[in-house]
């Protein structure tokens, strides 16, 4: 019998182990009563953001909101979680994507914006709108821009570049033994630039009538110039951190770096006044400066069991509580508030380089259109990478991309919208 009881113990122990493994809960309980909601955020790099969003959640009275802070591949995690019942009720999303909307995975939030719709920056609200309905409430406006080191440009006698040709020349001039001219990310720019050079050439990713917007000789001409940057060896490659982190710029590995507005407080702290900001410079006769903007938006999962409470929470936090929205945008990282009224009020955005960024974001900001699906994005990004790094013919690469993108646009146009 001795062996019997040992076995029983073993089985019982394994069972208990399984039970405890299931009981993990990484969030913090909110302070309200009513139904329990789970809210997901991706991991923000800036200190204090997590505490802040937990504070907001705890202040909501009509539901107990549990915040989950999710490091790692956030987009993949949410996409997978939306297929199951164990996903979030409310989540921030770099979208929602067209397929998520057409697949009925997220709820229509149009009514939450009643009366205040015009106060949201159209650049970020438009990509969250499909068929005239709004599917995500923009949280902040994230802008990308070019940082340059004034002293290094001054020493080399280089003016801040305002055309793409000038940027290519400047990067070459600034490149020396220890410093590279420009950092566009460790992949040479294919990932982060995306459609930005096309907008700089006066083109777009998708036209207003839903066609590929870069079936034009100007596109090939502009993208070819990015290869020149690579061929000149002006680009920093293989840096310890990628473009979204200003470290390479701050450590003096590069004279210019493409990064985000979120990096501005850190850059100012380390470099003082020794830096300036620029939009992506214009190219060609019809060109204009180009400023990519993105927005994480708050969305509600269609699988949520408390849909009304979830919507009420989103309205409370991202529409009504402008004090929290301002705090979220400006107190931790550095973002432009999605609400025009808040952006106008923000004193931090009124002086120095930050004011420049706000100005050129307002004038030249573009967001990736909703019709630009991940499949189109991958096809284009692969082609851009081959153009930049392999010196592939831009005309031939773009012909293939236009064909793939057109097929993808046809697919989403014909996709049946399930309620």
């Amino acid at each position: 019998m001795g062996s019997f009881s040992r076995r029983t113990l073993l089985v019982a122990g394994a069972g208990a182990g399984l039970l405890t493994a299931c009981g993990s809960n990484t969030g913090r309980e909110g302070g309200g009563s009513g139904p329990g909601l789970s809210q997901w955020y991706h991991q923000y790099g800036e200190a204090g953001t997590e505490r802040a969003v937990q504070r907001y959640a705890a202040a909501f009275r009509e539901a107990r909101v549990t915040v989950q802070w999710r490091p790692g591949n956030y987009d993949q995690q949410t996409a997978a979680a939306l297929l199951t019942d164990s996903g979030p009720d409310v989540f921030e999303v770099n979208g929602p994507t067209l397929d998520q909307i057409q697949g009925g995975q997220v709820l229509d939030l149009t009514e939450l914006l009643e009366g205040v719709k015009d106060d949201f920056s159209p650049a970020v609200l438009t990509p969250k709108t499909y068929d005239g309905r709004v599917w995500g409430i923009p949280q902040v406006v994230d802008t990308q821009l070019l940082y340059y080191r004034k002293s290094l440009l001054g020493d080399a006698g280089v003016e801040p570049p305002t055309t793409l040709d000038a940027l290519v020349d400047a990067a070459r001039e600034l490149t020396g033994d220890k410093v590279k001219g420009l950092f566009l990310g460790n992949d040479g720019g294919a990932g982060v630039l995306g459609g930005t050079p096309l907008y700089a050439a006066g083109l777009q990713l998708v036209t207003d009538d839903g066609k590929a917007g870069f079936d034009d000789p100007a596109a090939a001409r502009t993208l070819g110039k990015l290869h020149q940057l690579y061929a000149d060896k002006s680009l920093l490659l293989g840096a310890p951190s990628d473009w979204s982190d200003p470290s390479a710029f701050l450590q003096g590995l590069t004279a210019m770096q493409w990064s985000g507005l979120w990096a501005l407080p850190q850059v100012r702290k380390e470099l003082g006044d020794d830096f300036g900001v620029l939009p992506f410079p214009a190219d060609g006769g019809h060109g204009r400066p180009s400023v990519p903007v993105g927005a994480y938006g708050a969305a509600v999962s269609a699988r949520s069991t408390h849909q009304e409470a979830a919507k009420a929470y989103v309205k409370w936090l991202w529409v009504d509580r402008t004090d929290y929205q301002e705090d979220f945008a400006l107190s931790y990282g550095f973002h432009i508030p999605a609400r025009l009224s808040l952006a106008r009020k923000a004193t931090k955005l009124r002086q120095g380089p930050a004011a420049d960024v706000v100005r050129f974001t307002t004038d030249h900001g573009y967001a990736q259109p909703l019709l630009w699906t991940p499949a189109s994005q991958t096809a284009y990004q692969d082609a851009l990478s081959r153009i930049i790094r392999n010196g592939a013919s831009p005309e031939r690469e773009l012909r293939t991309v236009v064909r793939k993108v057109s097929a993808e646009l046809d697919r989403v146009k014909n996709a049946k919208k399930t309620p």
Partner: protein
Amino acid sequence: MRRRRALWFWVFVGPFALGLALFTYVPLLWSVGLSFFDAHNTVTPTHFVGLGNYTAMLRDDAFTDSLKTFLVFTAFIVPVTYVFSLSLALMVNRVRRVRAFFRSVFFLPAACSYVVAALIWKMSLFSGVRFGLANTVLGWFGGDPVAWLSTPDPPWYWLVLVTVRLWLQAGFYMILFLAGLQRIDPVLYEAAAVDGARPGWTVLRHITLPQLRATSVAVVLLLVVNAFQAFDEFYNLLSDARGYPPYARPPLVYLYYVALGQGQNLGLGSAGAVILALVVVVVTVGQARWLRLGRTDGDG
């Protein structure tokens, strides 16, 4: 008593059988089912497309390129690991003292995680900036820093990818070879010496290698299957927040982006997975037939 045995059989085997069915066979069959549907952002699709996903996948340049990447990777990693781990085993086998020490030291990297090793290779050994280890060494000889992982031409990234895997797995295969070596009857070597065979290449060629035949077949088979499953080090060395470059993209990495990225085209991804599984089966069975797996050492 017999009933009792049956009960305990199911208590012990049941959970694993259940887990295997639930987490392996059901998803496998589900995935085969999905591959015949247009399954964007859903695992319960309704729009049947027949073989549409299969034809789309086979016509996709990116997918065929990923198969080529696998072939190139296999062509590098299999012979290199084979020769390197066999050499290690021969050396360790000859050591008379502290053999256990060397065996452990060479085996240790096998205990390291692919993710951790990939990050060390990427951040410190083959960092593209001038203070990375490889670039520092190049600098001593007056060479310019090389962006090891960011330049497709020349394709230096293969050096990084092959060395990291070689470092991680050589120790494991060394142990397999050691086991094989220790099963060779010393009488054979003595007889060879009496017959005048010189130690070294002749003995290796005519005694050691033929005697290691079964081990070699198993090692090559394992190496090829592992190369097929390559994901960890590729993904951690080459991907970034914005995706994955169009080169050195093995099949699993490609399918990961199609099916599990924001693309969420689960039907197309499943079709790719089924095609891949068929390729693995054909290659493995073909290889086993060709190399006559299952014969014991010395059957010649």
